């Protein structure tokens, strides 16, 4: 699994997660009565959790650690899944410290997409890089071609302002917006 240093998760990284870690997770889940679809769902959630932890610099950037981490997250996710299904399953204490999984988000509503779309593609990419990938201003400046960190940061706030104003307008138009 290569380092991806808080950049967008590329498909090579995701593929490497599957090829290196999924077989072990699949065996673990199959031995506990899970199906292939359940293993896939749990693994998808686990990659999201791992990615968010990496973006927040909460995972030591060591190859073996990362794979072990992902396997640990997957066991934890499987245990949570079983609890939600009222199943019982044994899970090691080591997994107890993991944060709650990224809950599977509800699909974005049309209104949400419309709102985010109103900021424009470039703004959305910039905001995604800053707020989901947790890119530093220096890296964002270099990736998006800004003169420096400050320019990238100012642009980030301009994009944020557009979205914030859109949220305010939508809230006025629809009292139930974002409910």
């Amino acid at each position, binding site marked *: 699994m290569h380092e991806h240093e808080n950049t967008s*998760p590329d*498909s090579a990284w*995701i*593929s490497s997660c*599957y*090829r290196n870690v*999924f*077989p072990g997770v*699949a*065996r673990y*889940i*199959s031995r506990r009565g899970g*199906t*292939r*679809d359940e*293993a*896939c769902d749990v693994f*998808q959630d686990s*990659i*999201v959790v791992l*990615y968010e932890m990496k973006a927040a610099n909460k995972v030591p950037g060591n190859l073996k650690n990362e794979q072990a981490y992902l396997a640990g997250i997957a066991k934890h996710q499987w245990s949570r899944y079983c609890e939600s299904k009222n199943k019982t399953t044994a899970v090691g204490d080591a997994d107890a410290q993991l944060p709650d999984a*990224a809950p*599977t*988000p*509800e*699909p*974005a509503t049309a209104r*949400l997409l419309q*709102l*985010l779309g109103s900021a424009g593609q470039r703004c*959305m990419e910039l*905001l*995604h890089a800053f*707020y*989901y*990938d947790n890119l530093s201003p220096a890296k964002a400046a270099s990736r998006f071609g800004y003169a420096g960190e400050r320019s990238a*940061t*100012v642009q980030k*706030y*301009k994009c*944020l*302002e557009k*979205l*914030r*104003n859109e*949220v*305010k307008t939508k*809230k006025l138009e629809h009292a139930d917006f*974002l409910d």
Partner: protein
Amino acid sequence: MRTSLIDIETAEQYLAGALPPAQQLVFQARLLAEPGLQEQLIAQQEVYTLLKQHGREKLRREIVTVQHLLFTKPAFAKFRERIRRYFPET
């Protein structure tokens, strides 16, 4: 940077708990005195939530695409065979 952007920057730091104590007090006082600022703060918080949701959905789509390739492309037949051993019924 224009004033409205400085307010957004300050609100971001306030929400992250990253404002120095003196600035935090000033900002809290402004929130009480300026209802518009309070509204903006709430909307800004909602934008962060939306961005996170959007980010997760985008990542999940990428994961599903990769998973589909691994389970269909001839190049990954060995990988599939390994997984099939654990789930012979599928």
